[in-house]
């Protein structure tokens, strides 16, 4: 499997408009894979994030490290290739011809949350009461941000409790993929919601007055959604008493790990304007959290078709080609020019979009991966992508 028509420009890690070529930039990605303990891949859905995470993990194993990749929602054929057909929540080892070890696992949000509850519960009785509560089951499956948070919790767990040299995580393909940065705050806010706090601690004199109002309010709410639902929620908050602190501390430590120098964030995008806008948004969010993006990987880049090379620079090239197509209209050559103009338009648009993003990731290496002939769905396919991501090594 090779890049389709590896025409000049794309796919060698220095896109014409993605900033000047930095010597050794590809060693940058390889260096991260060789040295860091944690690599997080983020980006919006449909940009090849899962594949990129798998490629990085494979490279880790090739470099002799014991590596695990945690994926969220791999396409079925890739999941099969990685031995992830069953959702076990435990890493499984992938055999192959590399000096290190490659393990893969799929994130199971619920079992990760369950484990977290067991860890923080003061007694088995408390954890069973929580795990059996209907409201808890809803939280662990449906509360927005839970999946994002659990991905990071799993990352922390693997980091602390296992002997993996490198943990690579894929983030959920949602628009809110970076919500895990807020997860500690979000979760605390939820668990400490005043409405339920006053309900579960009715003894305090100060809250008594509030309590009456809250009761009235809840009665009205239960008229809308039914009393069972409220009863379940109250039972949950009562069962959870005393565990918030442990949860919050854990969440703080997870965020410390994310900001640690041994952790690297990679941004994955495709050269379309909307996904690059998302990538820029991610970069900004990470920057707010004090986290630098250490690599930008852009998948599915069109070849340059001569844009930005040759005499006269890049600017008017597609237009010049289009003009030529018009003069030659009706001939085979005219149609060939028309087609070339189409693709030059795409190529120059992609390069403009990329140039806009390069600034947002500052000095981080930008790696362009061209259109591949087929979707990546096996180890050979991952190796082919690795050829682009780690080209300096491969060459």
């Amino acid at each position, binding site marked *: 499997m090779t890049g389709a028509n590896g025409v000049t420009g794309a796919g060698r890690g220095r896109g014409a408009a993605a900033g000047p070529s930095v010597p050794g930039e590809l060693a940058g990605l390889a260096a991260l894979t060789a040295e860091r303990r944690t690599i997080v891949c983020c980006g919006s859905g449909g940009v090849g994030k899962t594949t990129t995470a798998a490629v990085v993990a494979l490279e880790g194993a090739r470099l002799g490290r014991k590596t695990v990749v945690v994926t969220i929602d791999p396409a079925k054929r890739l999941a099969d290739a990685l031995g992830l057909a069953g959702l076990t929540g435990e890493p499984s080892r992938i055999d192959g011809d590399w000096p290190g070890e490659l393990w893969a696992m799929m994130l199971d949000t619920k079992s990760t949350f369950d484990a977290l509850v067991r860890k923080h519960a003061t007694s088995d009785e408390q954890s069973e009461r929580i795990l059996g509560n209907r409201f808890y089951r809803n939280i662990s499956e*449906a509360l927005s941000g839970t999946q994002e948070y659990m991905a990071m919790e799993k990352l922390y767990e693997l980091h602390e409790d296992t002997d993996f040299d490198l943990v690579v995580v894929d983030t959920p*393909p949602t628009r809110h993929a970076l919500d895990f940065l807020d997860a500690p705050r979000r979760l605390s806010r939820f668990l400490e919601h005043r409405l*339920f706090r006053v309900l579960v601690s009715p003894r305090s004199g100060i809250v008594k007055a509030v309590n009456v109002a809250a009761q009235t309010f809840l009665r009205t*709410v239960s008229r809308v959604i039914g009393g069972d639902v409220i009863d379940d929620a109250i039972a949950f908050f009562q069962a959870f008493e005393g565990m918030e602190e442990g949860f919050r501390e854990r969440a703080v430590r997870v965020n410390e790990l994310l900001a640690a120098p041994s952790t690297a964030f990679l941004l994955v995008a495709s050269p379309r304007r909307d996904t690059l806008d998302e990538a820029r948004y991610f970069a900004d969010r990470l920057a707010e959290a004090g986290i630098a993006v250490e690599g930008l990987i852009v998948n599915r880049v069109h*070849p340059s078709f001569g844009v930005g090379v040759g005499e006269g620079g890049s600017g008017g090239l597609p237009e010049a080609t289009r003009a030529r197509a018009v003069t030659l209209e009706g001939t085979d050559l005219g149609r060939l020019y028309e*087609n070339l103009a*189409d693709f030059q338009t795409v190529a120059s648009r992609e390069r403009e979009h990329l140039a806009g993003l390069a600034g947002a990731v500052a000095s981080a290496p930008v790696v362009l991966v061209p259109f591949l002939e087929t979707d990546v769905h096996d180890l050979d396919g991952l190796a082919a992508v690795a050829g682009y991501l780690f080209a300096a090594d491969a060459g």
Partner: protein
Amino acid sequence: MDPGRFFAASRLVIVAGKGGVGKTTVSAALARAAALVGLSTLVVEVEGRSGLPAMFGRAELGYDEIVLSPGGVGEADVRARTVTPDEALLEYLRDHGLSRISKRLVSSGALDVVATAAPGIKDILLLGKVKQLERSETADLIVLDAPAAGHAITFLQSARGLLDAVRVGPINAQARDVLDLLEDHQRCQVVLVTIPEETPVNEAVETAFSLEDRVGVSLGPIVVNGVHPDIDGLDVDPADAARAAGVRLRDGEEAALRAAADFRRHRRDLQREQIARLGDQLPLPQLWTPFLFTAALGPAEVDVLARALLDGIGVLAELPT
């Protein structure tokens, strides 16, 4: 079939597809296609930050309708708005004599707690509002730009799930009404969007079967977006073509012309394979929208896609009723 008849099949069309396939673009194109044949159309967005308003040079959409694309002679307007769970809930409570608690429910963050207690409640609030729009016949066609699939399935399943969780009261009634709407083929259908590539095709097939089996919703034609149109003559070698035209090619041009022609032919072959596979695995009529080479996505480009849809609809067989 006649586009008027096509769009009259159901007032509500829910457009679903995974991220990156152009779901919002196709929603806009479908709406514009209906408007071109004179049907008033409303596009409803349920997740903020979509690219829809930008396509028409507008800022963010709000809860109030705007005219997104005014219709010319013989055409109708395309309007657009958002529906958010918070606002839908406020409106719902106001309409049901509960305005006293409504503000507090939202501002205290209690809605989040309640929504967690009964997951799907936000989805039901959204779909309940869409149902109300459908019932009020506010437009000839309502295009709902659904959340990205897999969430689309959860989203559309919310009604059934809530009927179990909330057995009485207004939310239960709302869920029942939404389910009636989704299961009524005369009122609602889902149009899936995909692109002719392996993983998106696999996911479209999976989503289609899940939607039919688990939601019981009727599927309209599937839109295959980003299809490379054929250009004749790309098989001719550039050097031969230049000789035939009596033109001398500049340095590098021959290679660039050949590379672009090879790329196009190659992509087209791969796409045809995937389209054929989609047809084998999913017995739904297909509508194709072309890959756009233009630099920006604006009203002119939406029109190109809308006309491609109308052409596709024109050659569809009459739907069985």
